[in-house]
């Protein structure tokens, strides 16, 4: 299943609903382009909803890290929402779970943006 992203606005936060696989190649590129486009529009409060992301490889993990640091370096915030067990476990073993701000409830996640 290829990667897809769609955006919606909730109280000044851009929620990016992702689905599919974030892997080397198309999946990673789509995520990268989506985040870059949002930043170019000045949308710097980004909530990545990964509820329908069923697979991520080391390249995809790297892309999440890149998105996180890119947004932060531009004065924004990027948080993760609704991790699947597989993605959760991957972030745990790579010690990235504590680096990312991970939420499991959308309304609370939106409120958590400063």
């Amino acid at each position: 299943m290829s990667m897809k992203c769609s955006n919606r606005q909730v109280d000044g936060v851009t929620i990016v609903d992702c689905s599919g696989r974030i892997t080397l190649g198309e999946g990673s590129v789509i995520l990268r382009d989506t985040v870059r486009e949002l930043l170019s529009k000045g949308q710097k409060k980004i909530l990545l909803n990964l509820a329908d992301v069923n697979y991520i490889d080391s390249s995809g993990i790297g892309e999440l890290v890149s998105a996180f640091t890119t947004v932060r370096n531009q004065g924004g915030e990027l948080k993760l929402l609704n991790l699947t067990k597989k993605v959760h476990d991957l972030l745990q073993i790579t010690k990235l779970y504590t680096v990312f701000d991970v939420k499991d409830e959308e309304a609370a996640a939106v409120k958590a943006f400063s």
Partner: protein
Amino acid sequence: MTDHRVSYTLDSTLETVDSAEEAASRIAAESGFDEDEVMQISMAVREAAVNAVLHGNAYDPGKKVSVDFERTGHDLVITIRDQGKGLDLSKIPDPLAPENLLKTSGRGIFLIRSFMDEVHIHPSQTGTEIKLVKHVHGQTAGGKEASQ
């Protein structure tokens, strides 16, 4: 699990990575591994194939990647070889070190070692061979890893 061997010779492309992953998933499932183990094996093979295509053969169309799956009575043994310059093991960073946590690459070998029971890496001037071993349920290795 019955003794069985399957070999593939693949081009140095991203499609190769997907093919190797799909074959690993299918063979692991046929070998009786559970869903989580199948995911671990297929991801380890994917990461090893990515290394072979990108870092080993550097997408060179003249170089091939070979992937061998061997089912023995106790193990699934997967061997992936490239025709690159040979992986420099001393240059593989620890992705869990605080200074590396926010790096965007360097987690592939770590994930492979996390998911497989044994990992043997043999770099040479004619390429790198990585052998991945997953034991059948209930049979654990004495050591988690044996890189060489």
